[in-house]
């Protein structure tokens, strides 16, 4: 495939404007495998309260790799970025508002 110079915000072109190099897919794949192994190793080390944050941090990095490279968001129009970012923004609102309630219920017995 020819390498088209531009990829963002194009309307009126053929969709065959961007075919990522094959090596990228394998690089992301091995990074995801590495992250998986790291998650397992980290879970067997006692980090106290940090075990879950570390596991989630690795998962977020893995998810970001999948979204940007496997799901081609990195080469997508800005409108796609808006949808992707706003969906996680709403997820953040859900978690922040819910925890601002549950984490401050000191009168609860549990």
């Amino acid at each position, binding site marked *: *495939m020819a390498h088209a110079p531009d990829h963002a915000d*194009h*309307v*009126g*072109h*053929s*969709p*065959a*404007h961007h*075919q*990522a190099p*094959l090596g990228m*897919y*394998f690089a*992301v*794949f091995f990074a*995801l*495998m590495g992250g*998986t192994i790291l*998650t*397992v190793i980290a*879970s*067997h080390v*006692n980090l106290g309260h940090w*075990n*879950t944050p570390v*596991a*989630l941090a*690795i*998962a977020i990095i*893995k*998810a970001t790799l*999948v*979204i940007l490279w*496997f*799901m*081609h968001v990195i080469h*997508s*129009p800005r*409108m*796609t970025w808006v*949808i*992707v970012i*706003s*969906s*996680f923004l*709403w*997820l953040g609102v*859900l*978690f922040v508002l*819910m*925890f601002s309630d*549950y*984490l401050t219920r000191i009168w609860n017995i*549990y």
Partner: protein
Amino acid sequence: MRNPTLHELQHPGTSDDAHAHHHPFLQHHFEDLGQQHEASTLGMWFFVAQEILFFGGIFMAYSVYRHMYPEAWSAGAHHQNWKIGLFNTIVLIGSSLTMALAVWGAQGAKRKLTTVMLVLTLLLGMTFVGVKGFEYREHIHEGLFPGSHFTYVDHAHPELTRGVELFMVFYFTMTGLHALHMIIGAGLLIWFIKRAWRGDFGPEYYSPVEIMGLYWHFVDIVWIFLFPLLYLIH
């Protein structure tokens, strides 16, 4: 008498020729395949966005109850075999790679490669669901299925028994909804394998494979979070 399309309005006098040379999969309400590709990809992202919030709500509930019953969550996770979980994680990441390579093949007009990669994705996906079913059978055998079948008692800490049951409610709900997504994806893959083999896809028209990929990768991402949250709590 049909109404003129946007294309005809903007390019008067080209109506017959334009239709004669249209790509067979170009819908009439789109200017060209590029616009159609962007519209369909964006539409799929809207769907994925609501899926993120759909699963997000369950992850939210999981977090609240884990915060309430941390010891029970830890005890519940000890009934999960992390080695099987790791195996399934590797299988699923592998299937994401083959799915991505199927899209790559379609972009490059590699009909056989696309078909083979879609078949591999289907096989890996079914392996995952099969292993999941094996795990479910073990849990049910141990009396860990919530409700009237829940016969498990934590002898070391009997007070945690009800909390472990709640953990298993989340375990079966989250992995069950995830597996349901896999099964729906497998059904779509069978249809896509047929289309790919028939030669529907190519550099001009690979949007359906791309969109199938978005769905499959999203389901992979859900598992990336489920694996540490259900198997790796100590």
